[in-house]
């Protein structure tokens, strides 16, 4: 049923740390791997030896930004479904294939009911849904619903594939409805934010802003802390000989 639940018991979702993400695409690969071999239609690749393109549930963009003051920054920007509370992709679906689970808030597609009209992808502001070109059904992040509750996996692996794999620890998974959960504390401490709040989707996933890098954060080096420093100190402050002559000649020009 494509009516949204009034409220969900839990709000499972991701918190993505834009400060930590190094843009390695490991989560993209892990996501594609897990979701090709497990629940639902595999994520196809089209024309791999020509003009390749494929279905992905998670993609990493990279942006540069120049704040009013301070240095420009580069930010790697992972983007997958935000499991919105007020998910427009769900209510537009005519077949009932798209739904949001009342128990944990995960937004899923029932591929056996999807007719591939693509309207839900139009309704999502974030580009989190793609029709698989081989299967003709709508694909989206499942929050790895087949991992997080999967008792066949060791407990440490009962996390989304992208979270489990991230070498930088930039992706965190948890219940954002519980103010005492690790993810909620992280969001509170780091000022977690919503993407495109003006779209009114009330995303569950939050993004932690990059810390400002407008000053050199290393301590000032006195020389004592570095045993090589004395040997590397400039030997002659004033140029001598030929260099001195060149220097003087250039000054006069």
């Amino acid at each position, binding site marked *: *049923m*494509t*009516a949204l639940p009034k409220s969900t018991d839990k709000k499972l979702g991701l918190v993505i740390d834009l400060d930590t993400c190094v*843009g390695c695409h490991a989560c*993209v690969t892990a996501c594609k791997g897990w979701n090709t071999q497990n629940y639902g239609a595999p994520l196809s690749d089209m024309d791999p030896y020509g*003009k*390749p*393109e*494929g*279905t*992905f549930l998670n*993609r*990493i*963009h*990279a*942006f*540069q*930004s*120049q*704040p009013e003051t301070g240095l420009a*920054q*580069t*930010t790697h*920007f992972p*983007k997958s479904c935000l499991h919105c509370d007020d998910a*427009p992709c769900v*209510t*537009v*679906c*005519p*077949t*009932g*294939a798209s739904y949001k689970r009342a128990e944990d808030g995960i937004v899923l597609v029932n591929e*056996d009911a*999807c*007719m*591939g*009209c*693509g*309207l839900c*992808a*139009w*309704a999502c*502001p*974030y*580009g989190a849904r*793609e*029709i698989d*070109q081989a*299967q*003709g*059904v709508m694909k989206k992040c499942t929050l790895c619903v087949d991992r997080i509750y999967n008792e066949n996996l060791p407990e440490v692996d009962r996390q989304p594939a992208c979270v489990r794999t991230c070498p930088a620890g930039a992706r965190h998974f948890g219940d954002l409805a519980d103010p005492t959960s690790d993810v909620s504390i992280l969001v509170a401490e780091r000022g977690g*934010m*919503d*993407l*495109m*709040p003006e*779209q*009114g989707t009330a995303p569950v996933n939050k993004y932690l*802003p990059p810390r400002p890098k407008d000053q050199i954060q290393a301590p000032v080096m006195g020389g004592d802390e570095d045993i090589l420093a004395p040997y590397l100190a400039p030997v002659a402050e004033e140029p001598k000989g030929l260099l001195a002559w060149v220097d003087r000649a250039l000054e006069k020009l």
Partner: protein
Amino acid sequence: MHPAPSVIIFSSLSGAGFGLLFFLGLGMPAPSGWVAFVFYVIAYALAVGGLLSAFFHLANPKNAVKSYSQWRTSWLSREAWAAVAALVVMGLYAFGQVFLGTTWTALGWLGAALSIGTVFTTSMIYAQLKTIPRWNQLPATPLMFLSCSLAGGALLSGNVTLAVVLLLVAGGVTLWHWSAGDTRFAEAGSTLNTATGLKGKMGLWEKPHTGENYLTREMVYQVARKHAVKLRVIAIALMSLLPALLILVLPTHIGAVLAVISHIAGILTQRWLFFAEAEHVVGLYYGAHLGKAAA
């Protein structure tokens, strides 16, 4: 948005077809026998032809029948219901006129309401989408679809005076939809800053992938904007001005046929623009609007 021919043909042809059914349902005219038969063949060919074309737009059409299940929330599902209800009711009404020579007035009115209702549900599929600010115009988007459908219907049903008025109205509403639509993206307020939460002047440093993907092909369509103004002029001339002129100065069957052809060509152009000019906010993540955001 990618101007897929199937969807453009659907919305143009079925709009005209349901417009014709609307006037037939109102008894304007109320033909019988062979004349009625020809009218209904034209109306059904347009309406059903359009629907079939939309059907081929589906990536997984075997589940299309399930689209009748979510009428409580989904405009696409409501459209599916309205279209079938209109076609069934108008089919019965047509049967009366073609084979029995009787006109069931109340049934016709119901059919007329369902026919124009179908066009309304189609327009709401687009108008509801906040993600595409140019489409998300109330009431301009539904009014544009409705006025075009009524103009086409009046033209096809031979209500000449009404057709002239409605053709001009449809042209006027279209101009309004375009001019109001030109500022909608800015008014909606989505920028690369709101899309990422990052501060300052922004630029796209690297796309997530070197090739295209479903999103960039479907939603980040780059229209040759230098032609947009010319196409707007052509659309208004063909859909509105020329057919109105033709039926006034050439009040024959030839004039009417030419007017219909011109009108449909104009509507096809207008619908192409409706898609090609519409920008989805997801384009921001792929570098759309960067010129404006950085300025």
